[in-house]
């Protein structure tokens, strides 16, 4: 059954208060660091001061003799993971890399890489013990930047990594872990047909997900191995699975309980602390709590890649693109696994390209291993493509929006990476952009306007859900995904809609790993899609059961019962004449009709709808200081169907805010030894509230027919267009194109200073 007819909906599409809202605004919600246990110890991590070094020796004797210290762990306690055990289920991580990221083996690969951990009766004693751990290093040359790391004579991070994806297999190890390539048609021929060719190089810096809540966990390992993990993450099943492999324990012995999460944005889809806390707890026999400080978060947890993006686009005078080519070089940090493939795909996916080629390089360097960050990889490639589209529009003398209308992907377009689009809403976002009042306002001096589009494929995958009708007729819904963006509200709304009951009578719960079946992590904008599909199916099963119970009560056939507005009715006069039965009535008598009424559903959701967005940004540039002010911002997005419109708008605004930070000020500053100089929010500048105007949102609804309510993922695509939208607006304002992020005041001023003398000379 589908619920695509919007007018027939009573709950979905409204804006109730989120079930977790009161707890969060009153400070009652329990986040990762809020759990304590009797007898608990505090764990702290000894980290590498070097960007790249061989570990000659680690001596923990002195630390162990410090009164109050109960355990010390080093790499020696962690098992090697054989090749066949390095991947678990459908999870993306290479667990052997992750294991060595959690605790260095042989070499440290970035400043902040963990080399040992201590558990003590107080945080102060644990800190003191860290100073007593003696680590001898042989410092090695380090490499920070992507093209330097690709050079043939670059210092090599891993001598067992040979570039994958090229034939024949290389014989020399390389920092290029992988090459990916997608092609369509013949780009050379396409470029020959072009009247105009734009060929540009863009660069981006690694940026952190900048969640407010630092990583935190509490782990208790009993003598028989039974383990409980409380932690804040994007997936309790991920925590359980990854930890089990890294420490060498059976999954059945681990129960992972999800805390509330204070932001993740992809950065909490892997583990850092849990395996170390596990080892310390196992060795000490006591629960161990670990909480990172902000500095550790910056030094040791995942940013997304810094990158070089080379874009070449050819077009006819009328604006039709004849060929497009991108070469993307992404930093992966200390271990392979940058999101370069998504960058390759997403940048070009917006357009209908007769000929296309994209090549991506996954490149190691002595920085923290990158972690997923909101639409991983896509914003980087799109910054290049969407900037180049603007440059092309300028060159052709065609309005940038028009250029996108001419070349934008439509239903039936075959994307460069393979699929043929169905039910996509990109053109609809362009129409809504064209119609928006924002475009009709005029601009003052030093002000400019930019537009940019973006794509994210969204995800489906494995989800479980349970729907329990309680004795009083209220409903409990259990899902297996941590609620990051308001998904509890959405889940409860979909269930309330299916059951025909008020939203307030449905309580959603994020279950621990023993309370609900396996569910993949919250990520890829998958939860409202996949989790929503699972809860909808569970609720539908419950409806079937409720009809059956009414049929038993009335002694008629279940086929003769109809479920409407939260009640069972006899279906037509032939079925007999009975008073309708609501949930309360049926639940109260469930013992007499067959027992508790519940349904649990496990699915591997397919058919997530792709997400497209187009953004409009106005800026004003202070030409004397280089400061860029965002004057107005409008985000237009195909959201499929907004289950809870406020939380969809919130996702769109959040993505824009993060994108604006990426565009304007966020960057890591390393000294010449590869040590991070700005590991805090004072000098790692995410936007503050007063930096942002109210971000206007336009939700275009092109329902995804593969979801019962038409939902598509909405959380990630809004971070894709902002960097180019801002760069395009700056170029419009001052006539100078910035191709390197961040477009911070010194960079903007330097760019202005470069062109001003030329302009004056020309005048």
């Amino acid at each position, binding site marked *: 059954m589908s619920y695509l007819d919007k007018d027939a909906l009573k709950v979905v599409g409204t804006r109730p208060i989120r079930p977790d809202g009161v707890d969060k605004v009153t400070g009652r919600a329990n986040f990762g660091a809020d759990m304590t246990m009797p007898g608990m110890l505090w764990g702290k991590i000894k980290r590498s001061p070097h960007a790249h070094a061989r570990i000659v020796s680690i001596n923990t004797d002195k630390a162990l003799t410090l009164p109050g210290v109960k355990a010390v762990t080093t790499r020696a306690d962690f098992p090697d993971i054989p090749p066949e055990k390095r991947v678990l289920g459908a999870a993306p991580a290479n667990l052997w890399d992750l294991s060595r990221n959690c605790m260095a083996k042989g070499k440290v690969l970035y400043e902040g890489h963990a080399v040992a951990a201590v558990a003590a009766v107080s945080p*102060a004693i644990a800190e003191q013990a860290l100073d007593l751990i003696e680590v001898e290093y042989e410092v090695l040359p380090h490499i920070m930047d992507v093209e330097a790391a690709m050079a043939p004579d670059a210092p090599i991070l891993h001598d067992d990594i040979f570039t994958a994806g090229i034939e024949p297999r290389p014989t020399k190890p390389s920092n290029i872990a992988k090459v990916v390539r997608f092609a369509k048609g013949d780009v050379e021929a396409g470029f020959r047909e072009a009247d105009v060719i734009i060929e540009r190089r863009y660069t981006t810096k690694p940026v952190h997900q900048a969640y407010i809540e630092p990583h935190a966990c509490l782990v208790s390992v009993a003598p028989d191995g039974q383990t409980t993990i409380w932690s804040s993450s994007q997936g309790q099943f991920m925590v359980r699975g990854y930890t089990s492999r890294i420490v060498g324990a059976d999954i059945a012995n681990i129960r992972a309980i999800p805390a509330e999460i204070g932001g993740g944005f992809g950065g909490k889809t892997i583990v850092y602390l849990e395996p170390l806390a596990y080892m310390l707890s196992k060795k000490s026999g006591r629960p161990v709590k670990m909480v990172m400080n902000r500095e550790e978060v910056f030094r040791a947890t995942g940013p997304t890649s810094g990158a070089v993006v080379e874009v070449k686009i050819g077009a006819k005078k009328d604006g039709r693109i004849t060929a497009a080519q991108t070469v993307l070089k992404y930093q992966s940090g200390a271990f392979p696994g940058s999101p370069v493939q998504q960058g390759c795909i997403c940048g070009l996916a917006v357009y209908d390209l007769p000929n296309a080629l994209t090549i991506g390089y996954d490149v190691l360097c002595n920085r923290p291993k990158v972690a997923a960050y909101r639409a991983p990889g896509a914003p980087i490639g799109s910054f290049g493509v969407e900037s180049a589209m603007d440059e092309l529009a300028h060159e052709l003398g065609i309005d940038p929006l028009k250029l996108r209308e001419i070349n934008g992907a439509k239903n039936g377009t075959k994307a460069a990476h393979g699929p043929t689009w169905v039910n996509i809403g990109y053109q609809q976002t362009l129409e809504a952009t064209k119609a928006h009042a924002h475009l009709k306002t005029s601009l003052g001096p030093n002000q400019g306007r930019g537009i940019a589009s973006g794509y994210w494929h969204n995800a489906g995958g494995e989800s479980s859900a349970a729907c329990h009708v309680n004795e009083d007729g209220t409903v409990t819904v259990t899902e297996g995904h941590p609620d990051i963006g308001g998904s509890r509200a959405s889940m409860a709304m979909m269930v309330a809609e299916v059951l025909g009951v008020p939203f307030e009578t449905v309580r959603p719960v994020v279950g621990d790993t023993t309370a609900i079946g396996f569910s993949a992590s919250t990520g890829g904008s998958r939860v409202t899609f996949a989790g929503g599909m699972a809860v909808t199916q569970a609720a539908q099963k419950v409806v079937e059961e409720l009809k059956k119970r009414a049929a038993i009560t009335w002694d008629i056939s279940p086929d003769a019962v109809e479920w409407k507005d939260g009640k069972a009715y006899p279906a037509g006069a032939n079925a007999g004449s009975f008073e309708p039965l609501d949930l309360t009535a049926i639940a109260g008598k469930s013992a007499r009709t067959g027992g508790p009424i519940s349904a649990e559903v496990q699915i591997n959701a397919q058919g997530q709808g792709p997400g497209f967005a187009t953004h409009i940004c106005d800026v004003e540039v202070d030409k*004397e*200081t*280089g*400061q860029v002010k965002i004057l107005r911002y409008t985000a237009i997005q195909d959201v499929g169907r907004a289950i809870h419109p406020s939380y969809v708008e919130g996702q769109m605004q959040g993505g824009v805010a993060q994108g604006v930070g990426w565009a*304007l*000020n966020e960057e890591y*500053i390393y000294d010449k030894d590869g040590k991070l*100089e*700005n590991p805090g929010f*004072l*000098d790692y*500048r995410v*936007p*503050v509230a*007063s*930096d942002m105007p109210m971000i206007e949102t336009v939700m275009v609804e092109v329902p995804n027919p593969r979801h019962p309510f038409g939902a598509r993922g909405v959380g990630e695509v809004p971070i894709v267009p902002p960097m180019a939208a801002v760069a395009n607006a700056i170029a419009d304002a001052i006539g100078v194109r910035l191709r390197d992020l961040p477009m*911070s*005041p*010194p960079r903007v*001023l*330097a760019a202005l200073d470069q062109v001003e003398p030329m302009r004056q000379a020309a005048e």
Partner: protein
Amino acid sequence: MPNLSFTAPTTVDEAVRMLAGGAGLAKPLSGGTDLLVQLRSGRMRPEAIVDIKRIPGLIGIREEAGEFVIGAATPGVMLSAHKAFEHAWPGIVEGADLIGSQQIQGRASLAGNLCNASPAADSVPAMIAARATCVIAGPNGRRTAPVEAIVIGPGRTSLEKGEFIVEFHVPKPKPHQSDAYLRFIPRTEMDIAVVGCGVNVTLDGNGVCTDARVVLGAVAPTQVIVEDAAKALIGHRLDEITNAALDAAAQRACKPITDKRGTIEYRTKVAGVLARRAAKLAFERAGAR
């Protein structure tokens, strides 16, 4: 922090005794918005903390003999709420007001901002530009010093062991005298000045500058009084030529470093820009009086 003593004396003498008493590092505590942060990060490891806020007079503003007397620990909110002071020295108030957020403003003081000895401290340039002085109590009694004599380098002050600032004296403005403070930060708030500039000017009835002080922050190890900038202003209206001379003088006075907050080149340029913009504000204000 194994041995950290905390006291909150109620007299100046007592406070001096506690600060001078021990062998280790003893720190006065005003609002704590720098000190506590440094304590927690481990950058500062004092043995004694002496909270001076309970000493009568340390919090509050009074007018006395043609001067404003500001208790050393007076928080930012009280400064901006004092109508007469705000009217007299809008530049000092706007500098102090830039410090942190609402929460920080409830605590952050002028003495703390000064004695933390950051070249980027936001309240200091306008205080120096206004020729403010401070009263310092110590084991040898009290002494007075101009504000610019306190900071001698990043994190270092000229205060001797046992000394602390009790109050600031700020003269009342002369006719047609006013001030302004501007800072440049990459964001709109919650940031540290890349450059700060305080300008204090006195005009004659025709808008010609008769006296001036231009003070830059964050462009050298300490705040810089730019004598050449004052010279560029005195005897002139704020016209294009004066502005150019002011800009150049400010740029020449810069001895910045390249660090995570800005490059030498950038700081130098922006110092000139801010000097011009702050002067414009100060001239407008002074002219309007």
